[in-house]
């Protein structure tokens, strides 16, 4: 079923969430919630085991200074497959998940067998979660079955490991395409299997393409997920990623989740934020709420 989207009113609705005023207790709780939903990410060619270990420390304990109430750990650390064993070991004994990009991230422009093999390797190395990319070229050319088949194939390889499917909304061109792609991916990933709540996510972007997680694109994913829940009772997760650097943007996302899919989704099992520098800003804001003054960047950035 094709659900048309109108860009003008979509943008107006998306902007309305940014007009909410999040203050006092609501801000304190919202910042902590946002920390708990983070997929702390590093996806650079220059990533090293040492850097990954530092990121893991930060993931487990986002703020080194004592703060009351304590700040939760982030949800996951997301890296390239080669660093999965290092991250896995560094996170051992904690609740923080190991997430790996796979399927020839970020472009997906290699044969499907190679992409599946990469996924298998990431899982064998200990990844709890796989962030896959789709073939945007196939989608834009109208070969929807091909996209559905690759999502299905990766999901099969994943088994019980959670799967996040990156649409790369910045390359899809129109809100109509984003909505159509989200519906297609959700349908393919949940087809024929009993999918538990939160086992499948739709994710906006790789972070390598701009625009990335804009408010309208995230709203489209949330609406697709809401409609799927209404139709089937299955809760699909949503993960905006890319370009979310400030606490305020994270709080706006929480507002959008709350008013679009409802409070059930306000948990790391169903909503994640993919980011790297955002955590530093969340930390500074949290320190501000407890101390009454801002921490210097060197007080919080420890990677």
């Amino acid at each position, binding site marked *: 079923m094709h659900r048309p989207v*109108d860009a003008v009113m979509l943008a107006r609705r998306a902007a309305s969430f940014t007009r909410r005023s999040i203050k006092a207790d609501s801000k304190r709780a919202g910042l902590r919630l946002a920390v708990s939903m983070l997929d702390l990410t590093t996806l650079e060619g220059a990533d090293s085991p040492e850097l990954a270990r530092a990121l893991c420390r930060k993931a487990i304990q986002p703020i080194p200074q004592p703060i009351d109430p304590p700040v939760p750990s982030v949800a996951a650390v997301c890296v390239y497959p080669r660093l999965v064993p290092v991250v896995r070991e560094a996170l051992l004994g904690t609740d923080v998940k190991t997430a790996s990009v796979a399927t020839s991230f970020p472009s997906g422009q290699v044969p499907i067998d190679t992409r599946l093999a990469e996924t298998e390797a990431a899982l064998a190395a200990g990844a709890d979660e796989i962030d896959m990319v789709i073939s945007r070229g196939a989608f834009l050319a109208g070969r929807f079955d091909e996209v559905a088949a690759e999502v299905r194939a990766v999901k099969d390889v994943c088994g019980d490991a959670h799967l996040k499917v990156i649409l790369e909304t910045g390359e899809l061109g129109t809100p109509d395409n984003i909505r159509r792609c989200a519906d297609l991916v959700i349908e393919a990933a949940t087809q024929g299997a009993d999918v538990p709540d939160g086992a499948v996510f739709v994710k906006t972007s790789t972070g390598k393409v701009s625009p990335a997680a804009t408010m309208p694109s995230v709203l489209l994913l949330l609406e697709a997920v809401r409609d799927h829940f209404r139709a089937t009772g299955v809760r699909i997760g949503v993960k905006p990623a890319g370009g979310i650097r400030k606490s305020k943007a994270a709080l706006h996302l929480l507002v959008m989740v709350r008013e679009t899919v409802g409070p059930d989704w306000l948990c790391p099992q169903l909503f994640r934020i993919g980011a790297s520098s955002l955590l530093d800003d969340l930390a500074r804001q949290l320190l501000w709420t407890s101390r009454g003054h801002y921490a210097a960047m060197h007080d919080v950035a420890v990677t």
Partner: protein
Amino acid sequence: MTSAESRTVEALTGSDWDYSPAPERTRPDIASEYGLFIDGEFKEPQSGKTFATTNPATGERLARISEAGEADVDAAMAAARAAGPKWARLKGRERGKYLFRLARRIQECARELAVLETMDGGKPIKESRDVDLPLAAQHFFYHGGWADKLQWAFAGRNVRPRGVCGQIIPWNFPLLMAAWKLAPALACGNTVVLKPAETTSLSALHLARLLQEIDLPPGVVNIVTGAGDTGRLVASHQAVRKVAFTGSTEVGRLIMQELAPREIPLTLELGGKSANIVFADAAIDQAVEGVVGGIWFNQGHVCCAGSRLLVEESILEPFVAALRDRMAQLRVGDPLDKNTDVGAINSREQLDRIRSLVAAGQEEGAILHDAQTDSLPEKGHWFPPCFFTGVQPSHIVAREEIFGPVLAVMTFRTPEEAIRRANTTPYGLAAGVWTDKGSKIFEIARRMEAGVVWCNTYNQFDAGSPFGGVKESGFGREGGLHGLRGYVR
């Protein structure tokens, strides 16, 4: 691991995360008493009468307002007439400077004026801050630009101002309506006697303070406060050469009768019962958004409110479900809280009217769906956002202008039926058409009997875009080039 085990994921934690109160703390400097703004000064009313203005959200008295009697209106008219020739002779670019200066002062004082508007009228601070104030400033900027370009606006004509304009404005967008009326009149070189609505005089009186600050020549704008009697004195005064009125169709009719024997050009912007037509092929989530904004914006106190919803029958059920979910997200309450979506009903009289019309709807058998009835504040005037389903076109809630947060939902099966149902009303102010099909948009829009037709959007306002009605919604246009026509001869 068995498949049953593999499916036991961690329990969802969810969250009851909600927004803390976010009260706007700015407070405007409200005087205890306000005189009449005549000839550049605030003057005690010769009538000796005053009345109270209250905050409809709390019942608290804000100030005492003067009631202009006959002698007061005479004085205002005399001041406007005396100031007329010099103001009309002033070069257009000089008049423009005053308008630009006023627009900038409004921007500088936007926060105080927004709070004042919210306290006096009950509308959410979010709306007065994000809609009323920016648009009011925009109207003065826009018309300031026309002031020295009238010879291009009216090519081939040497236009002159009409003279003294009597302008009467409503209580739903007090400052914005003042801007809509004043800006074109002043740009064209007219002088004005303006009468604000009696429940919402404060923002116009604070605008008068700004007029003093920008050194507008005395008498160019005079503001007389009061109720219907004062309005009648303004509209029927012998000195007026142009009357502009925004308000109810009932009063508009009286003004027209009053002016019938005289050759006074009239602009009337009256009531409405505007239809939003949603086709099955529309972008549904965005259509829901448009319907929500169309009826629940400003508590439904909007002349162009999309108070009738016509939904294609095949999508009635999901559309109503989506509308109900969306309605549940509206936060009703303290208008000064920055997160409030729906504020207080403007007056006791209006609340009573809404209540009686909703009761009539229920008696006629329509089904009421409302939101958040239990958590409304105890003091003040409140009515929760609601809509009726099972409405017949003959029902009172489908015919009468309610001017409150009440939507009547009906269905149609074919475009012809949609057009017929939408046009079956004495009003003709606005309409909305929602479809993904361009050809359908043009066909329906062409056949709507309405002054404004919005396509895949609603409530879009701009100083450059003419606004006004047909049929019993009035005549004449405000805004844009069309809006200037009423103020020149």
